[in-house]
């Protein structure tokens, strides 16, 4: 940067203008984010402490600063709350297990097909994610091909289903957020200089030790970014639970959605949204601190 700015005297004459330029560039986009992201969140915080108007219509609320809304909302929905985080955690772990070798293979073992394979990783996600989720429902469903094979081989009982279960919801979450895991992993693996691995081999490290002491630590920023990009949307998702689950696999997203649309209970929906967002932000901050990679964005 300094190099650029120091070249030629005519550049320095523009210095006055330049000091304003970045703010002009930032203004429209930042204004948009402020108006349609920050203000709604503030508004949501206000809504979360409202109570119903006495003798009012359904859906009309007034501000009474009732912070007990949070406690009520949490106590009523603590199962869905913990379920959201457990499912998201499982899906993230599974996605990491599936995506890491895939990204590793693309980065180091695919030669001239590297770019093609990278496109193929993203390609399935150009088909609408709802269509793919519903496709899983039908593939695993009662009329699908998988269930009869599984029952025939006695892997599962004659009356056990694969769909409408926690298993199906976690599978759906894992599948849907897989590219968010694979791409950052690939980006950080690809940046590793292969000579560092050769050096480890020259120093008599076997393949496993090389991986544990060289490759894995160097790919850690990708692991952190990938797990975050998978965990956050998975914890807030309600589509997989709605399509692949049953009433006992409802996640927090499902509760927020139905509070909003079916019961018009805005304060509870707002309190739950706020709790979910805060919990995720705390988790993310602690995780980034622990992993020691501040440079994510």
């Amino acid at each position, binding site marked *: 940067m300094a190099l650029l700015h120091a070249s030629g005297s005519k550049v320095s004459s523009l210095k006055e203008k330049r000091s304003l330029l970045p703010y002009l560039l930032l203004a429209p986009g930042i204004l948009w984010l402020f108006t349609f992201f920050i203000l709604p969140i503030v508004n949501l915080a206000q809504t979360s402490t409202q109570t119903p108007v006495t003798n009012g219509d359904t859906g009309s609320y007034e501000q009474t600063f009732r912070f007990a809304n949070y406690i009520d909302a949490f106590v009523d929905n603590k199962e869905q709350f913990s379920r959201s985080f457990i499912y998201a955690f499982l899906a993230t772990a599974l996605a990491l297990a599936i995506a890491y070798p895939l990204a590793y293979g693309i980065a180091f073992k695919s030669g001239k097909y590297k770019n093609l394979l990278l496109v193929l990783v993203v390609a399935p*996600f150009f088909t609408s994610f709802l269509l793919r989720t519903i496709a899983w429902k039908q593939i695993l469903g009662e009329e699908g091909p998988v269930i009869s094979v599984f029952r025939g081989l006695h892997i599962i009982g004659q009356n056990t289903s694969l769909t409408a279960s926690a298993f199906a919801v976690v599978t759906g979450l894992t599948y849907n957020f897989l590219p968010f895991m694979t791409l950052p992993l690939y980006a950080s693996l690809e940046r590793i200089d292969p000579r560092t691995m050769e050096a480890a081999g020259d120093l008599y490290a076997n393949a496993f030790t090389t991986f544990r002491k060289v490759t894995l630590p160097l790919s850690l920023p990708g692991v952190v970014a990938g797990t975050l990009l998978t965990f956050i949307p998975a914890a807030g998702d309600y589509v997989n639970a709605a399509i692949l689950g049953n009433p006992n696999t409802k996640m927090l997203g499902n509760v927020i959605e139905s509070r909003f649309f079916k019961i018009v209970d805005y304060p509870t929906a707002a309190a739950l949204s706020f709790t979910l967002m805060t919990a995720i932000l705390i988790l993310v901050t602690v995780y980034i601190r622990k992993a020691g990679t501040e440079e994510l964005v």
Partner: protein
Amino acid sequence: MRLTWWFRKNLIRVYMVLGFTYLFIPVAYTFAFSFNNGGKSNLVWKSFTLGNWQNPCGAPDVCVALGNSIRVGVISTVLATILGTLIAFAIGRHQFKGRSTINTLIFLPMATPEVVLGASLLAMFLNLGINPGFWPVVIAHVMFCISFVVVTVKARIASLDPRLEQAAMDLYANEFETFRKVTLPLVAPGIAGAALLAFSLSFDDFIITNFNSGTLTTFPKFVYVASARGIPAQANVIGSAMFFLALFIVIAGQLVSRRKAR
């Protein structure tokens, strides 16, 4: 013995084949059932037909929903790409106060669950007396796409060799000419990639759209509503067509940039 040796040597390749199979199973299923003559529900395979592809608008409302999705997607993509690219240049090429605040503001929408983004925006629109519909959806899509555009374009700007711009300045190009003839063409692939990402995020979004769309039907919303009673095969046709179209754009883009690099 020999087999175990081969297996160990090719373990990662075997794994990759399995991984890609897993990725493509639902896509293949969607594609296959786009040829099913299954009537309205399309749940069980009946017989092969090309009819769905010849008449993709055959099912009621499917093309209305598709049209809405494309309109929302194009407008949101243009707006988000412009706003996001401007921010990316400010962050990547300029010094200013409050940089870390701006970075946090860019990061936060990506770290906020969609259901919270959607619900909070709807609550605000309702408070202001604005009815959900087309423009609220566009506003919401621009909002969540901006951050992704910034991150993508910023990465491209950061990867540029600053000596190229310096060379242009040394050859007496002024700041504006340097930007137009050197910087912008070099950043252009990043902007194109960001626009493609923004469009696919917008086109595929369901949760935020569902909160803010009111009676407007988008393609994902159509699929979700239809899933209760069975999705018409025409939805599979559109999903598959989108898949091939996107694949074509990405591969063509790669070929073009490779030819330019030569």
